[in-house]
Structures are given as structure tokens and as C-alpha cells.
């Protein structure tokens, strides 16, 4: 799962408030290599753009989980594929 894909996903656990399912928290071992906020003028910062491109499109999360911000429900990621299937009682 690339970071760009993660950006498109949100939790669809029933009963959340609008927008309550986004963004899903990525849980993995490794800390991020990016600063928490882009600094002003980041468009011109080649080094930052290179690292941003790398993290968005070249890093793949293979194993981990995505946590719904409101409900806390975890969706597993295995072999690079996030599994957003809800169980029978949830849907």
C-alpha cells in the first residue's frame, strides 16, 4: 500500500460522524522520514520534494494496520494490501 493510496482511504464503519473515518492512522514499526509539516516554500525545495515523492509513491507498507480515528477499529494490511472488509455484525 503506497501512501498515496492511504490518502484515498477512509473508514466506513457504520455510525461514524461525517469525516470521522479519515485519516486512518498507519501503524508500523518504522517512524516517518519526513518532518511533520511542510516548511514554507517547499515547492522549491528539491531535497524535500524528492523525499516526499519517495514516501508517497515509492514506499510500500507491506504489513501493518490502519486505525479508524473515531471508532478505533483496526483494518489490517498484509502483503501490501489493506483489508477494509467489515465483519457481518458491523456492516
Amino acid at each position, binding site marked *: 500500500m503506497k501512501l498515496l493510496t492511504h490518502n*484515498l482511504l477512509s473508514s466506513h464503519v457504520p455510525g461514524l460522524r461525517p469525516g470521522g473515518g479519515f485519516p486512518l492512522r498507519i501503524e508500523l514499526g518504522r517512524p516517518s522520514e519526513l518532518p511533520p509539516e511542510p516548511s514554507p516554500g517547499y515547492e522549491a525545495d528539491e531535497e524535500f520534494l524528492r523525499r516526499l515523492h519517495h514516501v508517497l*509513491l515509492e514506499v510500500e507498507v507491506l504489513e501493518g494496520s490502519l486505525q479508524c480515528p473515531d471508532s478505533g477499529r483496526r483494518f489490517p494490511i498484509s502483503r501490501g494490501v489493506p483489508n477494509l472488509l467489515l465483519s457481518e455484525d458491523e456492516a
Partner: protein
Amino acid sequence: MKKLKLKELESCLQQVDTFENPKLLLEQYPTRPHIAACMLYTIHNTFDDIENKTIADLGCGCGMLSIGSAMLGAGFCVGLDIDADALEIFNSNIEDFELTNVNMVQCDICSLSDSMSDTFDTVIMNPPFGTKHNKGIDMIFLKTALQMAKTAVYSLHKTSTRQHIQKKAAEWEVKMEVLAELRFDLPASYKFHKKKSVDIEVDFIRFSAKKVLN
């Protein structure tokens, strides 16, 4: 990006691995390379809805349409399917084709509703038709696709449902254009069927996601 000819695209898509044990209840069958190539070629050349665009493939199965889109220069493709086995084959296809801009998500399209509104430029899909105890699933896929897409949805639907779809399209205020009428030969579902395959008439349709603009 080298301009790919229709015949080249079709012959590349013939290399896509397909279902080993298709699950009947999920209506699993591969979109034929010829049909996929013609669809994608039209979407790309007539409407310019593939190159550098973000694309979702709902009910992607083994990824025929996603892979074809990537080959025509899509910016980023995401395939969505409920079945882990199909996605595994899709994954190995992505490795074989050495594609770097294709990802996949396992989920049930029917339970997404509008949680992914306006997330993709284009949705391209060959959805289940609703022939296996899942009547109405084609319209659920279509509605979700229209919510997800910013510009257009390209989909295949049984010609026999055309009027019903036209009614729904009007209700949802989306423009609908039947781009082509195709004939699918679907493999026989049950052992006792006499014919080896069944021919059904299918419409290839373009829906504009936002009314008025396109």
C-alpha cells in the same frame, strides 16, 4: 511515453494471468483482452480520461483493466475487490508487468457508500451483473462509482438493463452515453447447461460524474 497501438495493448493484455478457480457467486471471469483493449483505447483516445489521471477499478479481479490503464499512461491506478485470491493474482501480475503506479485495496464495494467521494478522476469497471443471487449489485457499483469519480465512469452493463439505467442516470442527474454494444460470451455456469458458453449483449457506457460540466 511511447504511443501504444491497439493491437500492441491487446497482445500485452493477453499476458495477464487470470482466475485459477473462478468463484461463481462473485461472477468472476476475466474481461477479455480484446474488449479491455478496445474499451481502454476509446477512453484514452476519444476522452483523454486515462493519461496522468487517477483511476479506480471497482471489482478489479485479476486487474485486466487496471493493468491496461497503467500501460496507457495512467497517473495512478487502484483496484478494489472483495476476493483475496483474485487480488493475489493481481499482485503477481503487477510484479510480472513491473508496474510501479498500481495499488489495490480489499473491500466490499456494496458497503462503501459515499466514504470515498470524489477521490479519483476516472472510474473504469466491469462490474458483476447481478445474475447470481445478487440482483441489483450492478446499480450499487454504478452509484458508488459515480460518487468516487470526479470526471467520468466507464462501465459495462447488460443491454437488457439499459432503460432502467437511463432512468437512474436521469434521477442522479448524470449524463449517460452508450459508446458501444458488445457481445460477451460468458463461460457456462452450471455443468448441466448444454451450451459451453452463453452470449449476452452488453453496453459499454460512459457516465459523466458531474452534470453540466461534461
